[in-house]
C-alpha cells in the first residue's frame, strides 16, 4: 500500500491546469504546423501560421493560448494499492482547479447552476472522472474544455445494421454542422458502444490520446484513417473559412454494446487541444 497525501493532488491539479492552458501539447503543435504547410487555401495558410505563432507566444510568455480556458475535465486513474490521506480527494481536485485558475490568471468560465447562470468565480465545479486501476500509482489528466467545440458535440443511437457506414455519416454530419463554430482544424473524439452515459465518456477519453497514435484494433484504426480523410474533404478548413485542413486527428474508442444498440458520441475538440497529464 502506497500512501499519497491529498495536498499532492491539489498541487498537481493546479499546476496541470496552468500548464495545459499555456502550452499546447507538442503533438498538437506539430500537427498544426504540418497542416499549415499542407493547406491549400491561402487564407487558411495565414490563419494556421498565426495559430502556430500564437502557441509559441503563449508558451514563452506563460499566458493562455486561448482566452476560453474552459471547464476543467479531470481524469484520475487511481491504483488500487494507493491510500489517500489528509482529506477528501474530491475536494482536493476542486481546490486544485480553484488555485490553478486563480494563480494562472485563467478565465473563470463556469456557472454554478445551468439555469440560474451565476459565475462561481473560481472555475469550479470541475467535471471529475475517477477510475480504479491496477498498481500503486495515480495518473492525473487535465483537459480544459472550451465551449465553442464542446457545444457542437453530439450523441446518437444508430441502428446496429447501420454499422461503420452509419458511424461515418454521423461523425461527418456533426463536423459539418459545427463548421467554423468549433474552431477547426479539429481533433475529433469518437465513442462507439457502451451505454448512453458511457459512450460520451469514451468520446471524451479519445481526446486524451496523442495525435499520431492509432487505436490498437485494426478495424478501428482503419475507421480513424478513413474518417480523417473524409472530414478533410468537407472543405470546411481552418476556422471554417474554407480549406483542406478541417481535422488534425480522429481518435475512436469503443466498448461492448447491447444487442439492440449502436450508440455513437462525437466530442469535438478545437485546435486549442489542451491536455496535460502527470503520474504520481
Amino acid at each position: 500500500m502506497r500512501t499519497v497525501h491529498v495536498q499532492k493532488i491539489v498541487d498537481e491539479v493546479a499546476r496541470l491546469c496552468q500548464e495545459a492552458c499555456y502550452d499546447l501539447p507538442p503533438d498538437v503543435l506539430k500537427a498544426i504546423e504540418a497542416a499549415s504547410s499542407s493547406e491549400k487555401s491561402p487564407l487558411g495558410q495565414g490563419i494556421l501560421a498565426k495559430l502556430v505563432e500564437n502557441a509559441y507566444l503563449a508558451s514563452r510568455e506563460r499566458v493562455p493560448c486561448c482566452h476560453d480556458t474552459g471547464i476543467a475535465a479531470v481524469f484520475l486513474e487511481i491504483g488500487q494499492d494507493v491510500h489517500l490521506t489528509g482529506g477528501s480527494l474530491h475536494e482536493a481536485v476542486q481546490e486544485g482547479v480553484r488555485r490553478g485558475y486563480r494563480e494562472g490568471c485563467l478565465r473563470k468560465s463556469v456557472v454554478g447552476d445551468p439555469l440560474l447562470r451565476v459565475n462561481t468565480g473560481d472555475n469550479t465545479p470541475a467535471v471529475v472522472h475517477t477510475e480504479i486501476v491496477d498498481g500503486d500509482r495515480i495518473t492525473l489528466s487535465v483537459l480544459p474544455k472550451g465551449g465553442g467545440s464542446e457545444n457542437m458535440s453530439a450523441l446518437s443511437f444508430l441502428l446496429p445494421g447501420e454499422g461503420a457506414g452509419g458511424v461515418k455519416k454521423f461523425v461527418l454530419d456533426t463536423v459539418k454542422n459545427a463548421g467554423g463554430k468549433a474552431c477547426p482544424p479539429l481533433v475529433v473524439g469518437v465513442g462507439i458502444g457502451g451505454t448512453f452515459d458511457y459512450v460520451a465518456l469514451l468520446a471524451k477519453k479519445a481526446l486524451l490520446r496523442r495525435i499520431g497514435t492509432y487505436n490498437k484494433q485494426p478495424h478501428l484504426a482503419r475507421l480513424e484513417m478513413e474518417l480523417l480523410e473524409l472530414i478533410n474533404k468537407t472543405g470546411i478548413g481552418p476556422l471554417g473559412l474554407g480549406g483542406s485542413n478541417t481535422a488534425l486527428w480522429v481518435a475512436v474508442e469503443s466498448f461492448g454494446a447491447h444487442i439492440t444498440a449502436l450508440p455513437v458520441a462525437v466530442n469535438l475538440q478545437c485546435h486549442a487541444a489542451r491536455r496535460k497529464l502527470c503520474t504520481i
Partner: protein
Amino acid sequence: MATHRLITPLLDADIEKLHSGDEVLLTGPIYTARDAAHKRLLELLEKKRELPVDLRGQVIYYSGPCPPKPGQVIGSAGPTTAYRMDLFTPAMLEYGVKGTIGKGPRLEKVREACVRYRAVYLAGIGGASALLAKTVKKADIVAYEDLGTEAVHRLEVEDFPLIVAYDIYGGDIYSEGIGKYKEI
C-alpha cells in the same frame, strides 16, 4: 483578396470597400460585449433608452478576455462564437453598430441585416487569443462592470487582424470558402 488598413469608427466609404474574404487590419477603439451585455443593451434599445456607451458607428467585439497578468494590458482575448449573439444583432445594426467581430457562421438574418444596415461581420482568428491580446494597447471597462469577463470593455487596438466574413453585398466567406475546397 485585398488587405485593408482601417480605423474605427468605420465610415460608409470604408465599409463599401470590403468584400467577403478580404483581410483587414483594424486600428482604433472597439467595444467588447457578449451574451449578458447584449441582453442588457437590447432591453435599453427596446425601451428606447440611451445606452451606457454610444455604439453608433462602432465595432463590437464578441470576446471575454482572461484576467491580465501583472504588466499586461489585457489577458488573452480572442473572439467567441458569434451565433449566440444572432438574436440581438439585427437590432444592434439597426441602431447603428457598423461592425461585429466573432467567429463562425451566423444565421441568415444576420447576413441580411449586414446588407440592409450596411454593416460588416468580421471573423477574428478563433483561438489566437495570446497573439490578439498583443494588438490591444489600452483596455478600460466602460459599462456593466458587475459582469466580470462579460463587462463592456473599450479596447484600443492596433492592426488587429480580421477577415471579412459578411459584407454589405450579401457575400459570405463561410459558404464561398467551403464551396471552393469541398470534395465530397
